[in-house]
């Protein structure tokens, strides 16, 4: 176990638990803490059974010992409203925080697009945008790395069962944060995001549409190649990331139709929207871990 970086997961809900299961398979990350607020919650009980240290006192419950427990990376899978406080507290203890909420205090991180930048800048807080952002921004970037994209728009359709209370209460944060991510990471001049929740049973697999408007006529061959390359890169950590149709070219419009099936670790396979978040969060942590293990980065307070 000596060659793994120790990590804490804040938030033992669906996302936190799925992340825990994925992290246990990691060769670079060792989850040691699960932080919750309700001792009876099934996520906290499960984490205890799996041998993690747990607390129901929130981040405060972990702070006194997190340094001596060697925690260098924390995942925040709570909600945007409490993230800022969590982030400050764990940063003070010298741990990097990977933000899976739409709080977006730190720089956006979409692994195949700009993970290297985030890590080389040694950011102590990185934000994973949104589930829709993780599923679509790589493809906006795949087009914008070929030629200028004046407008990027994504439509994420998720099953009703996979849209939790946090997403529902703060649906505007999803559209705003995703739109900003399309611009900042995706490289589109203007971004627009739409989310649709569909209650059909059996639940539909997450589907995403990416529309880009290019400045000049699209180079169809180069864009098609770039999109296929990018899909392979995402498949490295989300095997169920699948091109359904496209790229379709219609004048200066480029449209790509995707489906995202999850691994089915803790969350059901249809919840590809949640799976791509946890997979991207873990991928980010692993990259940090590599830097730490290689002696190139030592996370530290302020």
């Amino acid at each position: 176990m000596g060659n793994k970086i120790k990590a804490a997961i804040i938030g033992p809900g669906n996302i936190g638990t799925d992340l825990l299961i994925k992290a246990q398979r990691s060769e670079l990350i060792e989850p040691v803490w699960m932080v919750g607020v309700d001792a009876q919650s099934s996520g906290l009980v499960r984490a205890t059974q799996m041998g993690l240290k747990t607390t129901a006192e929130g981040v405060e419950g972990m702070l006194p010992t997190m340094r001596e427990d060697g925690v260098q990376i924390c995942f925040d899978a709570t909600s945007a409203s409490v993230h800022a406080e969590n982030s400050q507290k764990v940063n003070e203890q010298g741990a990097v925080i990977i933000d899976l909420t739409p709080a977006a205090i730190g720089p956006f991180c979409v692994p195949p697009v700009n993970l290297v930048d985030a890590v080389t800048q040694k950011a102590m807080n990185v934000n994973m945008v949104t589930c829709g952002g993780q599923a679509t921004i790589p493809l906006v970037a795949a087009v914008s790395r070929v030629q200028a994209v004046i407008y990027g728009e994504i439509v994420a359709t998720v099953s009703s069962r996979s849209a939790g209370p946090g997403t529902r209460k703060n649906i505007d944060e999803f559209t705003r944060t995703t739109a900003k991510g399309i611009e900042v990471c995706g490289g589109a001049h203007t971004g627009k995001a739409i989310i649709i929740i569909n209650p059909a049973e059996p639940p539909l697999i997450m589907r995403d549409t990416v529309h880009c408007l290019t400045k000049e006529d699209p180079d169809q061959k180069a864009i098609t190649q770039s999109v296929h390359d990018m899909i392979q890169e995402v498949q490295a950590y989300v095997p169920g990331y699948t091109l359904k149709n496209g790229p379709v070219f219609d004048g200066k419009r480029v449209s790509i139709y995707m489906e995202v099936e999850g691994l089915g670790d803790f969350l059901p396979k249809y919840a590809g929207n949640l799976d791509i978040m946890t997979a991207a969060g873990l991928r980010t942590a692993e990259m940090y871990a590599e830097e730490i293990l290689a002696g190139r980065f030592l996370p530290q307070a302020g």
Partner: protein
Amino acid sequence: MDLRKKKITVHDMCLRDGMHAKRHQITINDMVKVSKAMDEAGIPMIEVTHGDGLGGASVNYGFPAARDEEYLTAVCKEMKNAKISALLLPGIGTVDHMKMAIDCGISTIRVATHCTEADVAEQHLTMARSIDNLDAVGFLMMAHMIDAEELVVQLKMMEDFGANCVYITDSAGYMLPDDVTSRISLARAELKPETELGFHGHHNMAMSVANSVAAVAAGANRIDASIAGLGAGAGNTPLEVFVAVCDRMGIETGIDSFKAMDIAEDLVIPMMDHMVRIDRDSLTLGYAGVYSSFLLFAKRSAKKYNLSTRDILVELGRRRTVGGQEDMIEDLALDMAKSQGTL
């Protein structure tokens, strides 16, 4: 049924739902001209927004001829008596759009969700309720997909968030009068007495006027209709027809029937790009329970990929697609063309 002396509020849709049938290309001039005529005719409420609500301007739904801000500003300042409303679909528009529309002078915000997903409207209805004198309306779309009991749970959620009026919306034009009666009457019995209750129909099965009368009989007091029916699919409840029926039945709308008929004939029908009516494809929307604004998208994809519009619509219904899933249509058409070996 005796509905004499019953007072209802008719809310016109031709400048919002009508945007679907016009591919969102209604000009500011036409908006102002038609809304002024409606104000003159005594129509008390008029909706003005992109067909898919505030923030609907997109590749997915279509870019409009002008921005919502421009339409709303131009129309609001011309109104003598009529109140202007805007539509907002959480997931497409945000509270920022809502604030903009309030600054433009709207009196009503209508927050629309799929019939099972009312909780995504919490942010928007809570904020709407906090603004003095703003009429906050919750709007449950595709209401044919769930039964009256399930619908009431969602309507109450919207009421709890702060809606002073809630709507049962037949987005697919699928409901028959009994479907309306059962839903409206249970909602009326279960909601707070002071909460207003509305019905929004589509004419895909030629039931919109009968459904709207059934809604009034069962306790609805707000009815959406559209001059000349200009709206998605086979259009909305044609306002001039509904008002004429109300006159004959003694239901009081405060609208001048002849003036409404004249606006339909002289202003709105000449604006139509195609006759908004029941044809094979719009009838299929109602028959298969499909969101009415999918019509023109399905027609375009059918033409591009050499398919039948009806086949596309039936498949969209079978997959239980919901409002807003326009992006599904080209994707599905590509799948169908591939399986037919034509692509």
